[in-house]
């Protein structure tokens, strides 16, 4: 039986059915959806400290503010929910909002529900939280030290999970091998942050104790269980829906789930539906990021570069809480810890550590960037140390083409591929020889040019049981086996005989609806636009499972595959119906051009719609064995995805694509700016369903990887302050930074998926960062020891490597300067002011609360606590950020009326500040000269978003203070450039909403 006589749609780059609406402004993103009249807005009060105990939360003023319906603290929330499920056995609680301690900057502390977002944010500023700051720890290795501050007292330390694994006989292999070669690798934090932020709409029906939540969540829907449990309702009392469109996710929108819980509680307490749209600072500081990881990897290596064993020691930093599905980042790759290589013996030690940073979650590449950076830097190191050609070392270790399906040492079943052939084609078609020539020329001219390689196995369609590898086999036996990956698809026919497809794939822009229309239209011999597809989810109405959603590159292999099966079943039934109506055998029926007919006799045919609608209009006429043809729902789970074995083998993913990349990078001799000269990426993702979309995935992943390699880093101060809170600090690549890669394909269909397709969306996030790092290493040091490369490779990091450390300036600038220190942003400075008053008078003024109140910029009142201590309430603004601070000021080293040291701590919603300054008074005859030096540190929101402006702003504020003092004494008031700048800053601050 043939599906169709016309050229199939699948495999062609047809235009996307999504696009007409999207290019016309008719997308339906979460913030575009209509909401019920009376829906209230939620705003969050968030932690300014990386680590602090909450002493008290005073909501009095906020509750009285205009438009406010409810102000909800962490303590309030705990009365309605329970702690979220944690994926390892550990005595620890995991709340979606801070209860008595904050553990990362941006952690929710309270929620304000008000009539609109402006009023909600106004009131959020009025919530007064009294913190007692604690020492923070942001480095995972440091977090393991005995004297490190402990985030969760119940755990006793910051190590929340440790497991050791052993496959084959690594010890013997290491003993037998002539070389033991290892490297230490630091992989930083970054996130594929989408342009659309999180959004949630929630309502609560008390009569049924039921939550109805719409969120731009992307799956996996195993999270539905986490949310329902936390809300303490059965699954059928949590209706979870997703909007038709989502503005990208790349894993990140899995992390919206704590806000689903909080919004549900807010709706319940406020007694009205609520809506929350995250802002960019909230997103960057407190959504989710990828994990950062510290890895030691060693290989047992033969003289020819052949690897006989690997030894991994990984320290994974999951941030302040281990949120579901973590520590999945660490275990997603567990089956393929040997990459594309045939290595029989493996030892692994995995430690999961908590630090004062944002909790981690799904992120494109999920675990791949971290392991491949280590593995492929190791391959480069092996070639260097043994003096071998880099490509030879790779080739010698590849899984051979005749070995598929190939079982890796750690348990993955690599489905298909011909790695050597794909690599050979890339070398040839990608023009490696020419690139070598370019490098030779460049080097001959004294330029720094390097070539890097990376070889990657890209897993897709996660085994829902892989995360249980984190449990011991005894614990797993007790909990019962977890495995599989149910994909669902429904194909339905309406009374007019038209076809609708429903899946639970929750696309985030990948064009799922188009591809499924291709699959089904081909099957039924219909034109593309005859098939309509819905891919958003309503858990009360749709077929779904815990594996539903948009992650682990599962769409093409699993969801399109399940759709293919559903359509085939329905087509086979329709063939029987048509055969009985056309008086022919079912095997003679063809579906083509909107008609169902006899293969041999084109005149003997019926319209597709007529046959298809038979089950609606005259079900009694259907052949007996057909049942109905109204709707076919398929649940498909591949048998290859088995639970972990007793000895910890795990087939963590169903499909394994292959990627081989190489690139040429030149480092500018003056600026040290690295630039990609040429980038070639070869992909084997099995059968290609839509070539343009596949290339779109490759280009998109590549661009994000370019960002991770050169620009992006979640920057934290040692005190846990977050320093990359705007898109001007967390730099995403623009059109100027992303070159067009050469994309090549080699197709070996997967034997395990219905359409032969494998996932393709994440590969370049795994291969490209390390390919670039290897090229940079080659440019820096063509021979000998490999330089330690830590991403992102910025000009600032490379400059000292090529120019040597920057010498101290000959004439140091005495002005203030901002520099990174152990704390937040450090500011130092000095200045002087002349006042027309005697030293004694000035001295008195400096100690008088009323005078201080009059001259401190933005003061709302100064109180004297005792002779040397004051309390002040001030509003300070930096750039667009303005906030109110409570300051404690102490005077010491008093030398009246000559000198005094002022030390102070300030705490406010926008962050913290601390510092000290020495003020000296000198008699000038007709007045007093005041000189001052200060040193201050700033943390919290101000440091995150105003970092670049802090230095100048501090100068302005302090200068303003002394000028006001001078005015107070009748001295010359400042009206110079500084005063004008201050006026400008004020205006900016007032224009913004924050």
């Amino acid at each position, binding site marked *: 039986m043939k599906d169709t006589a016309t050229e199939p749609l699948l495999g062609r780059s047809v235009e996307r059915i999504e696009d007409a609406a999207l*290019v016309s402004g008719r997308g339906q993103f979460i913030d575009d959806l209509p909401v019920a009249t009376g829906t209230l807005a939620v705003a969050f009060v968030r932690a300014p400290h990386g680590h602090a105990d909450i002493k008290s939360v005073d909501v009095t003023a906020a509750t009285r503010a205009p438009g406010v319906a409810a102000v909800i603290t962490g303590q309030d929330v705990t009365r309605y929910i329970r702690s979220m499920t944690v994926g390892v056995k550990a005595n620890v609680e995991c709340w979606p909002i801070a209860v008595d301690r904050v553990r990362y900057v941006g952690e929710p502390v309270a929620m304000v529900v008000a009539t609109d977002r402006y009023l909600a944010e106004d009131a959020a500023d009025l919530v007064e939280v009294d913190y007692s700051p604690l020492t923070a720890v942001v480095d995972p290795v440091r977090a393991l030290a005995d004297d490190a501050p402990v985030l969760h007292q119940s755990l006793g330390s910051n190590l929340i999970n440790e497991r050791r694994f052993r496959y084959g006989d690594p010890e013997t292999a290491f003993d037998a091998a002539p070389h033991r070669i290892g490297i230490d690798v630091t992989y930083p934090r970054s996130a594929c942050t989408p342009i659309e932020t999180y959004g949630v709409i929630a309502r609560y029906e008390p009569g049924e104790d039921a939550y109805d939540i719409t969120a731009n969540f992307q799956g996996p829907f195993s999270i539905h269980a986490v949310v329902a449990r936390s809300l303490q309702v059965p699954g059928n009392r949590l209706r979870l829906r997703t909007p038709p469109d989502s503005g990208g996710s790349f894993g990140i929108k899995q992390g919206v789930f704590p806000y689903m819980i909080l919004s549900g509680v807010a709706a319940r307490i406020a007694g009205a539906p609520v809506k929350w749209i995250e802002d960019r600072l909230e997103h960057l500081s407190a959504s989710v990021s990828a994990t950062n990881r510290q890895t030691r990897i060693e290989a047992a290596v033969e003289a020819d570069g052949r690897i006989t064993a690997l030894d991994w020691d990984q320290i994974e930093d999951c941030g302040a809480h281990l949120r579901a599905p973590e520590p999945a980042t660490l275990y997603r790759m567990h089956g393929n810890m040997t990459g594309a290589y045939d290595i029989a013996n493996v030892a692994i030690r995995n430690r999961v550590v908590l630090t004062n940073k944002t909790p981690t979650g799904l992120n494109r590449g999920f675990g791949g960037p971290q392991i491949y950076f280590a593995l492929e830097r190791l391959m480069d190191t092996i070639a260097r140390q043994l003096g071998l050609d880099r490509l030879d070392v790779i080739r010698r270790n590849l899984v051979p083409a005749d070995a598929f399906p190939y079982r890796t040492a750690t348990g993955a079943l690599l489905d298909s591929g011909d790695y050597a052939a794909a690599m050979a084609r890339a070398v040839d078609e990608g023009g490696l020889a020419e690139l070598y020539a370019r490098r030779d020329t460049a080097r001959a001219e004294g330029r720094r040019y390097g070539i890097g390689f990376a070889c990657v196995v890209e897993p897709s369609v996660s085994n829902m049981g892989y995360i249980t590898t984190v449990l011991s086999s005894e614990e797993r036996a007790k909990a019962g086996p977890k495995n599989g990956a149910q994909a669902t698809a429904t194909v339905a026919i309406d009374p007019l005989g038209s076809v609708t497809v429903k899946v639970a794939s929750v696309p985030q822009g990948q064009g799922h609806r188009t591809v499924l229309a291709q699959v089904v239209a081909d099957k039924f011999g219909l034109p593309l636009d005859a098939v309509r597809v819905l891919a958003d989810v309503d858990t009360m109405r749709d077929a779904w499972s815990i594996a539903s959603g948009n992650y682990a590159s599962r769409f093409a292999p699993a969801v399109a595959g399940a759709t293919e099966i559903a359509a085939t079943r329905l087509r086979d039934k329709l063939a029987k119906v048509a055969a009985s109506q056309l008086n022919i055998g079912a095997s003679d029926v063809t579906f083509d051009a909107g008609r169902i007919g006899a293969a041999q006799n084109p005149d003997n045919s019926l319209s597709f719609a007529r046959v298809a609608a038979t089950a609606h209009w005259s079900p009694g006429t259907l052949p007996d064995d057909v049942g109905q043809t109204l709707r076919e729902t398929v649940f498909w789970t591949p048998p290859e995805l088995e639970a972990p074995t007793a000895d910890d083998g795990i087939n963590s993913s169903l499909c394994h694509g292959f990627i081989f990349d190489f690139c040429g990078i030149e480092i500018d001799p003056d600026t040290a700016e690295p630039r990609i000269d040429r980038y070639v990426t070869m992909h084997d993702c099995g059968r290609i369903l839509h070539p343009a979309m596949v290339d779109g995935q490759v280009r998109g992943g590549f661009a994000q990887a370019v960002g991770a390699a050169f620009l992006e880093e979640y920057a934290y101060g040692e005190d846990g302050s977050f320093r990359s809170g705007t898109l001007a600090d967390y730099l995403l690549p623009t059109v100027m930074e992303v070159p067009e890669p050469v994309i090549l394909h080699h197709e070996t269909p997967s034997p395990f998926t219905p359409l032969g397709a494998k996932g393709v969306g994440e590969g370049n996030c795994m291969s490209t960062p390390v390919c670039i790092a290897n090229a940079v290493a080659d440019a820096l040091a063509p021979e000998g020891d490999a330089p330690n490369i830590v991403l992102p490779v910025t000009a600032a990091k490379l400059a000292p490597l090529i120019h040597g450390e920057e010498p101290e300036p000959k004439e140091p600038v005495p002005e203030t300067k901002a520099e990174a220190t152990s704390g937040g942003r450090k500011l130092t400075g000095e200045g002087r002011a002349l006042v027309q008053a005697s030293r004694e008078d000035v001295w008195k003024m400096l100690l008088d609360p009323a005078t201080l109140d009059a001259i401190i910029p933005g003061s709302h009142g100064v109180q004297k606590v005792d002779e040397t201590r004051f309390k002040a309430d001030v509003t300070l603004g930096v750039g667009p950020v303005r906030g109110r601070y409570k300051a404690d000021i102490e005077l010491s080293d008093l030398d009246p009326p000559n000198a005094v040291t002022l030390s102070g701590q300030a705490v406010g919603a926008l962050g913290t500040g601390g510092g000290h300054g020495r003020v000296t008074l000198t008699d000038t005859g007709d007045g007093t000269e005041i000189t001052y030096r200060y040193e201050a540190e700033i943390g919290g929101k101000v440091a995150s978003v105003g970092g670049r402006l802090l230095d100048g702003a501090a100068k302005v504020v302090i200068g303003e203070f002394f000028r006001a003092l001078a005015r107070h004494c009748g001295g010359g008031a400042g009206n110079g450039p500084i005063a004008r700048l201050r006026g400008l800053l004020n205006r900016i601050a007032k224009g913004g909403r924050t």
Partner: protein
Amino acid sequence: MPRLTKDEKPAVRFTLNGRAVSPEAPPRMLLSDLLRHEIGATGTHVGCEHGVCGACTVQVDGAPVRACLMLAQQAQGCDIRTVEALAEGPELSPLQAAFREHFALQCGFCTAGILMTLDALFASQPEADEATIREALSGHLCRCTGYAPIVQAALAARNRIKGGPIDA
């Protein structure tokens, strides 16, 4: 511009996509919020609210402007165009059609802003070369496409608007 106090909520009169509108807006309301939440023109998106991503770009008197950096009251008397105005009737404009043909969008969240920038560019510089187009695009962040198809689509649209060959 008249001085407003924070509790006033005067009407802002301007032209939106050829139609006169006069919604009320408190002085601190952003133009992006006015368009999206008061008028319901949700085609203009908001990605950062601090002027970096470009998703909120609209045309004010023909020039591309970040709607998140403009107060609603500043729109008084202006002629504002948003993505909803690009297509004439059911047909996509050449620029929109080129985006669809070249797969220059995935999630489409950044797209409205990019289209408004390019539309303004081609209106003032129909001959804009690739470097100029890239320069204009560099004010926009797209997290999905890797930009290459956007550049292709822009070149194709430029050629089509000029009446030249369709493919760049």
